[in-house]
């Protein structure tokens, strides 16, 4: 745990005009080589935490450090060399080919007038290969399926050659196979490539199977934080999600199953 890439400490934030704070003292750390998942119900503060962690929002209290340096002191460009983000929504205004899209990941490494160099080509080719999208390189992005689109965006993030990969709800529009494929890829990136991976997700069960560390948020507070087995316990989840549920062991990980409520 000595190579922390991201560390957020006691972060608090209230949006202007909002009744309740969106975050009330949340801490999370992402070491190199580990996959950290942030889960929780809608409105629990997941996306706000992400924005604060990425320096898009300044917290009212607490501190976010990337590589030991306050995130607000990084320029966007140098930050993009350390941290790559697959945002929840992205709609290109004009058609673009996959290869050109992935090349945009090289932007933080380039000068304004410089051409495309060998290092850029290598980074793009290996990023495409890593996500098994080499065959998609000449396709237009608006012809891709949801799963292919997510993989291509992960490839662009990898072309940034970051130390930390951040994804916001990456499986929202994906079917079972594609969400398993994506999380498997994230697990490989953390385990083999040694990246830090921070993923915000609704999918508690996916988080439990792939994450090393799960942060469960509720009402802007930490409801539980730790290994999946420590977070996926019925009492905690029932309180957070306000629904009766049970935990079963499957494939070596705890999985949460909601119960049918007899009387609505």
């Amino acid at each position: 745990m000595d190579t922390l890439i991201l560390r957020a400490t006691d972060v608090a934030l209230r949006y202007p005009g909002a009744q309740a704070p969106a975050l009330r003292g949340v801490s999370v750390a992402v070491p190199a080589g580990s996959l950290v998942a942030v889960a929780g119900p809608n409105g629990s503060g997941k996306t706000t935490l992400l924005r604060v962690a990425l320096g898009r929002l300044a917290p009212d209290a607490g501190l976010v450090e990337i590589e030991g340096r306050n995130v607000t002191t990084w320029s966007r460009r140098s930050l993009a060399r350390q941290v790559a983000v697959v945002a929840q929504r992205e709609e290109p205004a004009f058609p673009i080919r996959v290869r050109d899209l992935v090349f945009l990941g090289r932007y933080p490494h380039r000068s304004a007038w410089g051409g495309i160099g060998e290092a850029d080509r290598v980074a793009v080719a290996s990023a495409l290969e890593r996500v098994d999208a080499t065959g998609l390189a000449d396709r237009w992005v608006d012809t891709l399926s949801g799963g292919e689109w997510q993989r291509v965006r992960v490839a662009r993030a990898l072309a940034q050659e970051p130390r930390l990969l951040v994804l916001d709800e990456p499986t929202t529009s994906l079917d079972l196979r594609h969400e398993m494929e994506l999380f498997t890829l994230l697990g490989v990136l953390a385990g083999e490539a040694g990246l830090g991976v921070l993923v915000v997700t609704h999918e508690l069960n996916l988080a439990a199977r792939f994450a090393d560390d799960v942060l469960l948020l509720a009402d802007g507070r930490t409801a539980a934080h730790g290994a999946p087995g420590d977070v996926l316990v019925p009492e905690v989840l029932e309180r957070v999600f306000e629904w009766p549920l049970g935990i079963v062991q499957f494939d070596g990980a705890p999985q949460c199953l909601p119960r049918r409520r007899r009387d609505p």
Partner: protein
Amino acid sequence: MNPLRWVLIVAGAVVSLAVGVALGSVRISPSALIAALAGEGDPSVRQIVFVLRAPRVALTFAVGGALGLAGASLQAVLRNPLADPYLLGISGGAGLGVVTAIALGLNALWGLPIAAFVGASAALALVYRLGLVGPGMLDSRILLLGGVVVGAFAAAVSQAIVALADAQALRNAMLWLWGGFGGASWLAAGVFTAYAAPAALVLLAAAWPLDLLALGEEPAAYLGADVERVKRRVYLAASLLTAAAVAVAGVIGFVGLVVPHAVRLGVGHVHRRLLPAAFLVGGSVLVLADALARTAVAPRELPVGIVTALIGVPVFMVVLRRWTR
């Protein structure tokens, strides 16, 4: 990227420049044109080529290129394929700035682009404000509607000033309302270049961040773009290009819309290719449009903005249908 397309684009520019110089009330044959360019042949032909036609064609090419470049850049920052300096009201605002300055007696050629820039920036700021439907949320339909309305208003006020003022320079009022290169000279070309060249360089240098901004502001920021700074630069540079164009040639619409779309079909949407191509093709198209304006109803001359509108409006309708489908 296919190098043949660049050969075609450059060849098209050369041919359109030659056509622009050759056509007019005195038609110059290709051999006479080559002789004149080599400093030989009939002195009166040389006179026509170097004193009358060449400065006009050079200025027209530069203005067309500037409008193409401004349109392509605005389409990326606004993420809107219908963005164009004219449709966004920037040209109209610039025209109002120029007409106001001349009516006040401030008609030094070097100063007019500044007056135009004031008008252009004011119009863009107003249109942008109208298009903001929430904090940081730009509705591109309302933006265009606002642009058209602000442009119409600026044109109406310009027309009123032209009608009421008796400044000598406003006698040829059609120039400011519909555009034209009748007053072109090497001096005008120099003034235009002095203002437009730095702005064009700013836009060309922003080619990479424009690729990012076309993805959306949030992804662009995460990929390392300083979004606010890029937007500010592009708005200022596009306004300055438009202002310089309007100051020397009046309000010319649709070049900034039609040219980037035509170029996208040929070289794609990556801005380090799109922007230079939009400049070259914009220049070629406006030179040909001006040649048409000079010769179609000779010996009289059509304002070149009428020619570009006749070409541009059908293209606008096609793009509009595809965009809203």
